[in-house]
């Protein structure tokens, strides 16, 4: 009978499906099945491809295809990039999201730019600049720069941008030391500062401080004017939650770029994102699952970049909450943490243990004495503090995969010294509200990547009494004084000395316990040329192109 056959067929299909699913793991892992620990070893030894070490700890596995270019070379029209987070807005001076900031570097230019390959400030829309006095800087602007709306970039745009930014939420903290913008002539501006600010030049490299068009804001509604920049790509189309399309700006002052269209594509699920790269649906995949990185490394058609990020993963202990107001308890927690295990579990080994509040990329970074992993000592400290049998507490984490995994590991490690931790995994808004300065959470898993705009921002935000993210509620006069002094000291040695002392002081305080410097993993097609190091979490995508075969 027909029905019987049909049913049998369906059953067969279902069974095959289940079997395939069952086998899919064992098949694909035949090669790597001996490795059970860290995957990086596997990645470096089993892969026959060249592993090139670039400066600053970047590992590139695989080799970009060599290309010969001449005037007849045809370039691939569109390149698609899938970042981990969604693009949320084009509101340059109010946007805090990392993906949006990567986009801003495509659509806009800064006065000066940060060359991540060589760690130095290079010329952007300003051809040259000089510090006239402690509080006065002069910038000579580039001539012949056009905005996407056709108007010329001049000194009045600089003045407009800075004055507008002083009242906008995200730009404010970068412009707040600028008292006045003085227009000397059309192509010369001076910035007069309220007080000496050693970091002003870093701040001007940031995505929130890109130059806007005063003309556009005078003639267009705000949300349209926000899209007008001087950058190599201009805003084309944005379907929220799906993709953002940028089109080449032909009158770009450096000359038009090779790729016609750049698409930023939102693929929320990490596994799907990597598969899309492997099947050729996208060209660049940012942050595939850590455990799957070897698929990129082993694939001849793909190249893997492993870049130390500016993000320091850490936990914070709230000084307003019992028993973390007790320094002995905080030290006990610090001694209970095993960073190697944490990195093996959470990042599959793809991260660097970190022991300082300052990031290694900072010129003021020094090696400090950090409480080492020592559970016996931790227990002794707990007993000394009056908690010989430990206590119960709660750890807050956002619902992100990494944060949750960190919380799980911390929970298990603190359990070993008798502290019972309950995990509260919250989505971003609840988390941010819960850990805001003045909050009552006990422990939280956090990340901090504020080192791209200078050492002052890096330490002021989390540690100054009125820092924006003073989530551990540290109110220490000595810390405040040192931070303020370091910002306004013009003597470099003096400044370095203050920062060195401050780093050791903060680490001893154990309210902010660094765990690891995370890594940005980027998988891309081997044909892709021109990929550069990201600044912070923001990728430099200006020069990417693919030669059409």
């Amino acid at each position, binding site marked *: 009978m027909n029905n019987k056959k049909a049913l049998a067929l369906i059953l067969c299909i279902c069974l095959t499906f289940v079997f395939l*699913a*069952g086998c*899919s*793991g*064992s098949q*694909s*892992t035949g090669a*790597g*099945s001996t490795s*059970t*620990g860290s995957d990086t070893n596997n990645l470096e030894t089993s892969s026959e491809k060249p592993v090139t070490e670039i400066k600053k700890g970047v590992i590139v596995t695989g080799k970009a295809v060599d290309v010969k270019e001449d005037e007849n070379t045809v370039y691939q029209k569109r390149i698609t990039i899938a970042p981990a987070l969604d693009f949320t807005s084009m509101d340059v001076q109010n946007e805090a999201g990392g993906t949006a900031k990567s986009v801003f570097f495509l659509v806009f230019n800064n006065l000066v730019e940060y060359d991540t390959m060589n760690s130095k400030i290079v010329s952007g829309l300003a051809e040259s600049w000089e510090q006239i006095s402690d509080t006065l800087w002069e910038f000579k602007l580039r001539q012949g720069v056009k905005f996407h709306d056709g108007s010329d970039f001049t000194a009045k745009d600089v003045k407009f941008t800075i004055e507008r930014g002083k009242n906008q939420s995200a730009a404010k903290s970068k412009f707040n030391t600028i008292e006045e913008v003085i227009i000397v002539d059309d192509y010369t501006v001076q910035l007069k500062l309220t007080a000496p600010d050693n970091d002003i030049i870093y701040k001007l490299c940031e995505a929130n401080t890109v130059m806007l068009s005063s003309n556009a804001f005078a003639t267009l509604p705000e949300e349209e004017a926000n899209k007008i920049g001087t950058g190599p790509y201009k805003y084309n189309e944005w379907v929220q939650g799906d993709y953002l399309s940028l089109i080449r700006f032909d009158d770009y002052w450096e000359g038009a770029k090779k790729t016609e269209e750049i698409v930023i594509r939102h693929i929320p699920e*990490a*596994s799907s994102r990597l598969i899309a790269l492997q099947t050729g649906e996208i060209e660049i995949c940012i942050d595939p*699952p*850590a*455990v*799957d990185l070897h*698929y990129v490394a082993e694939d001849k058609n793909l190249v893997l970049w492993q870049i130390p990020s500016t993000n320091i993963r850490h936990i914070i202990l709230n000084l307003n909450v019992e028993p973390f107001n007790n320094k002995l308890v905080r030290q006990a927690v610090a001694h209970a943490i095993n960073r190697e*295990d944490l990195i*093996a*579990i959470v990042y599959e080994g793809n991260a660097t243990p970190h022991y300082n509040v300052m990031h290694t990329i900072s010129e003021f970074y020094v090696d400090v004495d950090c409480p080492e992993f020592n559970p016996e000592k931790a227990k002794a400290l707990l007993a000394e503090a009056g908690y010989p049998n430990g206590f119960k507490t709660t750890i807050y984490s956002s*619902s*992100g*995969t990494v944060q*949750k*995994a960190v*919380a*799980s*590991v911390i*929970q*298990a490690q603190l*359990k070993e010294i008798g502290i019972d931790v*309950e*995990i*509260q*995994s*919250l*989505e971003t808004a*609840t988390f941010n509200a819960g850990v805001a300065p003045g909050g009552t959470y006990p422990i939280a898993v956090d990340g901090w990547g504020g080192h791209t705009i200078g050492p002052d921002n890096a330490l002021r935000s989390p540690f100054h009494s009125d820092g924006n993210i003073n989530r551990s509620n540290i109110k220490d006069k000595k810390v405040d004084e040192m931070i303020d002094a370091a910002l306004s000291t013009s003597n470099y040695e003096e400044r370095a000395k203050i920062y060195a002392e401050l780093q050791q002081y903060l680490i001893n305080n154990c309210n902010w316990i660094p765990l690891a410097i995370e890594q940005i993993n980027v998988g891309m097609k081997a044909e892709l040329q021109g990929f550069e190091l990201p600044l912070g979490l923001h990728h430099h995508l200006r020069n990417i192109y693919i030669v059409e075969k």
Partner: protein
Amino acid sequence: MDKTNVVTKSSVAASRKYKKNSQLYEIWRNFRKNKGAVLGLTVLSIIIITSIIANFVIDYETQIIRQVVPERLQRPSWKHPFGTDQYGRDILLRILYGSRYSLSVGIVAVMVSLAIGGVMGVIAGYMGGIIENIIMRSCDVFASIPALLLAICITTAFGANTLILMISVGVASVPAFARVARAAVMTVRDNEYIEAARAAGATRMRIMFTHILPNCMAPIMVQTTMRVGSAIITASSLSFLGLGVPPPAPEWGSMLSEGRSFIRDYSYMTMFPGLAIVITVLAINLIGDGLRDAMDPKLKR
């Protein structure tokens, strides 16, 4: 399961002696005819028994939540029949121990919706008129908000702990219960024995809960059984969105969702919790279908 067992025993005994209680016996006879349903009942019984035994045999602190870094990500072997996860925890033990979480999430959630929805439906069905209208229209409103979204709103609003999770999953199926209960009551309420009770001076409340409710249990029971399955699935969906049972509890849904970034190299990490969910939910659904068939007089041969 327990309930059905009790029913069987008592009904078998009863039928032997007096051939009374024939309705329950009839249901059981019909239920037995349905091979799928019997299979489902067997499987579910095994799962429940295992979860009870697991409680005595497995130590939560050392075998379930302890992280053993050298043993992480080991493939299934004699030592770890289902392998270990990224924290080095044995997956088999976690699944065995975790059955209680998944089952209790399912059962408690349904109890919540049964308690709220059932009462609302009974009141609506019995009272009629404007009260019925108000109750049923508010059910329409709740029903038009997608169940998962409602659950998400509630868990974000009240925090993601296990109890809130159970409630939020349950609240979403309140309208369904209210509708079923109301329909069931409406078929019963005009019967003569209700009239009789009313004539005897019984209060409305008494009539509702002692005379009407017991007589319209059948459809409500069916609904209850089937919703347990979907509640387990909804809970696992919430885990996927980061709002499920908080770690390190070995709830199947959160194991499945945590394992998903390892799905390519270590597919056993999702395979086993996934299969555990599939088998349990399937068994529950089969029982529900069997019950419904057995209780539906229209479907008799």
